[in-house]
C-alpha cells in the first residue's frame, strides 16, 4: 500500500489518543497511553538537565517536540502532558498543546511513499478521517527520536 494505491479503510477501528503539537496531529494507540496530565505539573530538574513530572511517586521524564518531531529543550510548559508507556514499560511524558482520546469513524490508512521515509521511520502511516489528516506513530519510535536529538 503506497501513495496513490487504494488505502485501507477501518470502520469502528481501534481507539487512539490524538496529540496536537503545533499544526501536527499525532495518533498514538490508546493502549500506549497511561494518562493525560496538566502541563502545570511539569517541573524542571535542579541542574537544568531536563524536565519531569511525578505521578504516584514515580518520576517520569518529559520531552518537548516541535511540529517536525524534533526534540528541543524549553522551560515553557505546554497545556498537557501525555504519559505514555512502551512495550518495555519505559514511561515518558510528551508535552503537547492538546491531547484527547479519539475514535475515528471510517478511518483510511495510507502508507507514506518511500521518498518520504526518514531513517527512524518515525511516521510511516497517515490516517485520514473526514478530511482530517493524522500521523500515526508509537512510543518506541518517539523514544528513538529523543535518543538521537539534532539529527536531520
Amino acid at each position, binding site marked *: 500500500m*503506497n*501513495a*496513490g*494505491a487504494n*488505502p485501507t479503510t477501518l470502520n469502528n477501528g481501534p481507539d487512539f489518543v490524538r496529540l496536537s503539537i503545533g*499544526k*501536527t496531529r*499525532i495518533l498514538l494507540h490508546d493502549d500506549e497511553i497511561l494518562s493525560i496530565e496538566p502541563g502545570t505539573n511539569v517541573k524542571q530538574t535542579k541542574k537544568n538537565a531536563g524536565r519531569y513530572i511525578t505521578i504516584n511517586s514515580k518520576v517520569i521524564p518529559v520531552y518537548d517536540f516541535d*511540529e*517536525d*518531531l*524534533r526534540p528541543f529543550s524549553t522551560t515553557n510548559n505546554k497545556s498537557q502532558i501525555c504519559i505514555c508507556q512502551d512495550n518495555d514499560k519505559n514511561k515518558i511524558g510528551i508535552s503537547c498543546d492538546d491531547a484527547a482520546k479519539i475514535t475515528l469513524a471510517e478511518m*483510511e490508512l*495510507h502508507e*507514506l*511513499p*518511500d*521518498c*518520504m*521515509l*526518514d*531513517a*527512524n521511520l*518515525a*511516521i510511516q502511516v*497517515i490516517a*485520514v478521517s473526514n*478530511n482530517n*489528516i493524522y*500521523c500515526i506513530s508509537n512510543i518506541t519510535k518517539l523514544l528513538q*527520536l529523543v535518543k538521537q536529538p539534532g539529527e536531520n
Partner: protein
Amino acid sequence: MLEPACKSWILSSGNIHVAIGEFELLYIIAGWQRYILVPRSPIWCHHVFLWQGHLLPLFDIEVYINTTMDRPAAPLSNTGDFTGVIAYENQHGQIHYGGLKLSSPPVIKVVSDDAICDYPDNYPEWSRIALSCFEDPGIGPVPILDIQQLFCARPQAVATITDNTDI
C-alpha cells in the same frame, strides 16, 4: 527514450526546468491547496495532500537540488503556485500518484530526437534523477525526469554532493 516528435510537459520549479512525458501529468492544481506537514520527512518532500481520495506526497525539485548541493533551501511555501499531479509506476509495476510543486503552469512542447543534448550544468547529478535531456530553444537544456526514481527512492539513497564525486 524519446520517440521522434513526441510531446513533453516542461515544468518549472523556481529556476529549475525539467520535463515529463505527455501522459505522466494528470492534473494541474492552481492556487490554494491544503498541504499537511509530515514530521521528519525530507525537506524536499515534507508535505502530503489529498487528491481524489489519494494521499499524495508533494515533491519540490528546486529544494531537492539545493539541499543535495548544500545550498540554502528555498523557503517552503504552503500556499499559492501550482501543483502537478503525476502518475508513475513503482518498482512492482503498480500505478501511483505524486505531486510536484511548480512555480508556473506547465507548458507542452513537441520534442524530437535530434534535440537530445547534455544535461545542464546547474546540477552535476542530473543522471541520478533524469533519463535524458533535450535542448529547448527558449530555455536551454531540459532534463527529462525519472519520476520513479524521485518518488520511490528512500532519502538515505540521496547523498549530499561533495568535492569528491563517486563515479
